[in-house]
């Protein structure tokens, strides 16, 4: 199961909400809320950093590098 938010697609089966993307995102477009990863698409630039650092490959960011 995956969902798309502007430039970011989250594979919810692979995402374990570790927060690495939130640490790397310069725009606060990815936020860990409780035990959930929340995407705020209007903040996404997109730069591709979240997908780059994701340990599980749960994020796809076609607009990024």
């Amino acid at each position: 199961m995956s969902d798309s938010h502007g430039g970011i697609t989250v594979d919810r089966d692979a995402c374990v909400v570790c927060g690495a993307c939130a640490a790397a995102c310069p725009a606060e477009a990815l936020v860990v809320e409780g035990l959930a990863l929340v995407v705020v698409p209007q903040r996404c630039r997109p730069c591709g950093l979240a997908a780059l650092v994701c340990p599980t490959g749960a994020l796809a960011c076609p607009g990024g590098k």
Partner: protein
Amino acid sequence: MTAHRPFDVVVIGAGPAGSRVAARIARGSRRVLLLEKRPQVGHPVRCAEAVGPREDVERYLPLEDRLVSSPINGFLIVAPDGTRFQREMPGIGFVVDRELFDQSLAAAAVSAGAELRTGHQAMGLIHDGNRIRGVRVKDLASGAEYDEHAEVTVGADGVESLSPRWAGLKKSLRPDELFACAEELIEGIDLPGAFIEFHLGRSFAPGGYAWVFPKGNGKANVGVGINPLRADGKTAVEYLNAFLARRAPGGKRTRLVIGGCSVARGLNALAADGFVAVGEAANQNNPFSGGGIINALEGADMAASAVAAALDRGSASAKDLGAYTREWRRTVGKSNEAFYHAARIFYALPDEEMSRMARELSRVPGIFDGKGVKPLVMVRALVAARPRLLVQFAGNWLGGRRR
């Protein structure tokens, strides 16, 4: 929720750093609120769970048997060329049950008088000009948001922290300031002597290392931490799978632990007006190993002392709280700075040079004290082995600290 007398201190995050700060300040009869966004403190675990010697841990909490998964009796480093360096060092550390460990620290905060609210998340800081005066909080169960005012706000919200960014102390982490980590708790692995193992090599841990940390009863945390910029488009999980096939074939996977781990350089300032950052939120992890539990607790005590003194004086400006930054930078921050520079060079080495360097380092007298690697001795040894690194080190150091 705002009808009560305001808190003196609101702490964001009930990990080791936040719980310790909360306990220390609440003990002085101050009103402390400890916010934790998860429903349960310590769960799920996001850590390889190794800590240092008993006396280091017990400055902060009794290391009861139930908290200990396994003692660590020494270490083994496997260089990229397969060369093994092993040293028996009984008492060098412990692998703990991080869930119980964190819960013990949070319980100590509550015993000291702090109010713990799980399932409550910091959504933003309350600003009054430059002064931070508390936290906008969301009750995740009801969705309701409310303000909690406080004289001092403590950002202890971990690697994914936003509060030090809201306070202007920190930026997002660059990809090379993070280890992307993946780990399995493996059952049925061959573990000679409860040693901790570090495996180096570009093919299975580019820009980082793979580890085996004993958890007792034939179990171990087996993981990899990689630099995403050196990962050739592969994920930490893919590197973990390759490492498991090599180190623990046939082992049973029982718990997947995933996380980003800060290996960033220390912050220029740990305090703003009415705010301090502590623990991984403040880049206080060891930038060579990523280890951060004891560092967080040390930082917490330094922060708590400065916050308590500021509250006593009735003034919590960045200047009043600055003693915390200075003490950190004089002590742990100083060795972290050396580790940071050593890491930047060491993890960038090609495999054959890393093997050579590991051989050199293993021969350096005095590089290990009872607690592990001594950073300045390590830097000196790296430079001695490869004199041209001196220029690089000097450049890094003189290049100034980055925010």
